[in-house]
């Protein structure tokens, strides 16, 4: 879906990207994580074809973003970190024009406005919108035409806590319902952990680590979490708790949640699979709640 290979980008004497290499597979919600000035916005803009790379190769949906940007952006929605709009234009006019550029009608624009929660502000000029609603307007524009790929640069920046929650919930729903691949850049790890299942960690213009959250947790020796459903949850819990490397087991209704060291991952996967085949577990999944730990370890390892 997205492939960066040794990508270099310079702004004068400053090297924003220094040979960035990563891939984002189709269908994931990927977090592009890194501190301020890591090169996240530059990466998003290069992927959207808004900035030209100075070296390396980039492929997004099989296209070169700088050379085939027009074709690419038919299939991509972009939300910028601090989107600037013509101030005196009503929201409705702006949405209608952007929809027209995408070959869409007013109905499509209205649907995107509803999805992003700005339909009540259509008659207002853009300059009258609060920071949070400007962000929602940006999201509405990004959603126009139900793109295959969404590139969201700091989508919760400058939002109050309730607006942050709403925007994150909207992104999660979009990922699940639209089936779109989503790339979100952010430095707020707990938020990313809520919505992402894949991460690319970048610092100083270099990619430090990438992969699914569970693979990253395993690679960096962080904790993983198994969630299993069972008709006999207490029996399954007692089986799990006796295993080496299991740090805690909780039972919530028919669900059993076991936290374990990543070194125990393979053994516990085999145990749960056996329990499923024997009927003790109805199903199970592996997830990670240790993205912060992974991030810290990746940054430390790079020093």
């Amino acid at each position, binding site marked *: 879906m997205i492939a960066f290979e040794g990508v270099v980008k310079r702004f004068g004497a400053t090297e924003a990207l220094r040979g960035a290499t990563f891939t984002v597979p189709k269908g994931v919600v990927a977090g592009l994580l890194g501190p301020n000035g890591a090169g996240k916005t530059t990466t998003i803009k290069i992927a959207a074809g808004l900035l030209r790379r100075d070296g390396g190769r980039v492929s997004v949906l099989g296209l070169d973003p700088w050379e085939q940007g027009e074709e690419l*952006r038919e299939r991509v929605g972009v939300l910028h970190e601090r989107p600037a709009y013509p101030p005196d234009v009503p929201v409705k006019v702006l949405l209608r024009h952007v929809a027209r550029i995408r070959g869409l009608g007013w109905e499509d624009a209205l649907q995107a406005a509803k999805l992003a929660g700005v339909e009540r502000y259509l008659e207002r000029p853009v300059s009258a919108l609060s920071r949070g609603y400007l962000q929602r307007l940006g999201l509405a524009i990004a959603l126009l035409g139900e793109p295959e790929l969404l590139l969201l640069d700091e989508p919760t920046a400058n939002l109050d806590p309730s607006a942050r929650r709403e925007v994150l919930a909207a992104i999660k729903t979009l990922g699940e319902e639209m089936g779109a691949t989503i790339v979100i850049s952010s430095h707020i790890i707990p938020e990313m952990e809520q919505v992402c299942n894949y991460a690319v960690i970048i610092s100083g213009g270099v990619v430090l680590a990438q992969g699914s959250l569970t693979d990253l947790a395993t690679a960096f020796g962080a904790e993983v979490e198994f969630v299993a459903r069972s008709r006999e949850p207490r029996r399954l819990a007692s089986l799990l708790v006796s295993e080496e490397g299991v740090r805690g087991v909780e039972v919530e209704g028919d669900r059993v949640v076991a936290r374990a060291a990543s070194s125990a991952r393979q053994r516990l996967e085999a145990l749960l699979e056996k329990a499923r085949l024997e009927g003790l577990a109805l199903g199970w999944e592996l997830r990670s709640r240790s993205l912060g730990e992974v991030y810290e370890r990746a940054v430390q390892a790079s020093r």
Partner: protein
Amino acid sequence: MRGRSKLRAKASRFAAYGAFVAETVGGPLATSTAALSALTFLLVLAFPPAGGPVSGLPVLLFLTSMGYSVVALAGASAMVSDLKGPAQVFLSQPISRTAYALAWLSALLASALATFSAFLLSFAVIDPILLRAVDAALAAAWLLDAAILALALLAAAVLARRAAVLVALWAAMTFGSTFLLALPSERLRRAVAVARPLYGALSGWGAAGGPPLAESALLAAALALLLYWLARARLEV
């Protein structure tokens, strides 16, 4: 067939963005053009009686050209402001960088055509005989002059992205040209006559053979190619 539908999609996107420029940023351009047209009308009424119908023509042509140059400067400055913010929202849509620059160029050239048409209309309304005073070479010089100025300002907007640079270029092309035309150097005067064909024509340069319009047209084409290249290769947001 696929190529044709692609072309149609491109044209439709360009039209949609062009309409946006016309509806929003084009507002002040239209107002300035209308104000300039009204001023032209009043000036046409004021000038003809003094010593025949064409005595005030050079002044009128100069003033309308000067007025348009301010409109072009305002338009190019608006593009600079746009490149610092809103452009990234539109360039994140399926619109090419060249179409973006072309939309702005179209707005400025449409404004030039509207100004010159209003100028001719003023003559026609007062007395159609006055139209004979504006020969084809003079009309071409006015239009080429406006096109060269608009292209140079837009190319500078994409390259430098600073309103101060545009003002400096505008001042050099407007006042600098007038100054250079007064110098005795024939080579310099010819260069100015090519870059500002109206100024050249009004100053009487090349009176025998007429203004060097072909060279001015070549310069306009070269500037158009430069703007295209800058938009394609350098228009990052």
